[in-house]
């Protein structure tokens, strides 16, 4: 029932950052997402909170990306990585994915959004979602190994 705002703040922010690639705009959108969610009594406790949060964030990101882009400042790199070579190769492969596929990997693997929520968010069946995600990960794995 209860939503951990602190945890979800980071996840929504990460999602917005990867859509906008701008720290300040991503944080503005994250806060706007939570403000809209907090202002909505109808949706807050209906058990579809995550879907609602990601829908607001996605719509706000779409609106924001239509505005003229400001040159983003250089962003921080991760402090430590267990396998830097694999990470660089993976980042390169991720950039080659379509934005939709990249978003799905981010939501499911990194933000750990439940499959049920993703199905409602994308309007697809569980089977279709699993198949699509498996295909993306298989492709990534093959390109990294090959």
């Amino acid at each position, binding site marked *: *029932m*209860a*939503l951990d*705002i*602190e945890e979800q*703040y*980071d996840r929504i*922010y*990460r999602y917005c*950052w*990867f859509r906008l690639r701008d*720290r300040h705009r*991503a*944080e503005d959108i*994250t*806060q706007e997402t*939570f*403000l809209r969610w*907090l202002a909505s*009594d109808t949706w*807050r*406790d*209906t*058990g579809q909170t995550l879907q609602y949060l990601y829908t607001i964030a996605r719509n706000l990101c779409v609106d924001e990306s239509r505005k003229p882009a400001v040159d983003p400042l250089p*962003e*921080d*790199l*991760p402090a430590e*990585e*267990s*396998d830097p070579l*694999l*990470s660089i190769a*993976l*980042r390169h492969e*991720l950039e080659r994915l379509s934005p939709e596929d990249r978003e799905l*990997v*981010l939501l499911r*693997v*990194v933000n750990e959004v439940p499959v049920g929520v993703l199905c409602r968010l994308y309007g697809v069946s569980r089977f279709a979602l699993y198949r699509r995600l498996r295909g993306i*990960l298989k492709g*990534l*794995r093959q390109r*990294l*190994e090959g």
Partner: protein
Amino acid sequence: MEKKLYETLKGAFHAPPPERKAAFLRTHRRRELSSAELLLSQAGYVRWWTWALSAALFVILLLLAAGREPERVWISAALTPLLALIAIAEWGRSRRYGMEELELCCRMPTGAVLLARMASVGLLHLALLAVFTPMLAAKGEAGILRAGIYLLTPYLLTASLGMELSRRIRGQEGLLVCTAAAVLVCVLGVWALGTRRSLYQPEYLPLWQIALVLTLGASAWETVQCVKGTEELQWS
């Protein structure tokens, strides 16, 4: 490779840390209700006579347990449908009085509210039965397990029947039909006690166990359907 890929993917989606998170959370943090708090808050909305009737029935069951009649386990089992009827009467209250629309305007979803109220009544009943069963088994032939099965099966049968009927028949008629169903289960228990006493012998225990599993499954399914029913109502 699979695990390594997942770990590396998490690192590959590194975003620079947010700068204004602490300030935002300080200003906008609000306390969410935990499940236990919701349960307790909703228990306060259950009518006093639901608790009073449950307590009264429990006292009757205790008086029965104190007696020396060999049939007291089965008589008690025949009375548990009445306990389930009390819970069912509480379940359909908002629907019966046409208050669903009002409940839909509340902060919490109607399904969660109903579930919390039913859980509070159901947990009390289970606690009463859990206290009562060892007392009943202490002086009789039937052990705790058997006595528990005999008590729970008619309770769950009435609860699942009541939920099914109250979903299908609205208003006061729904409560009347539920009462009839509970009385029928009671009468069946008394009838079995009078004419089919062998049903309560140990050789029929596997049948009772199957019946318990079936009624448990039916109750769970009916609960899900009732909660889903409130979601449909919200969207229609």
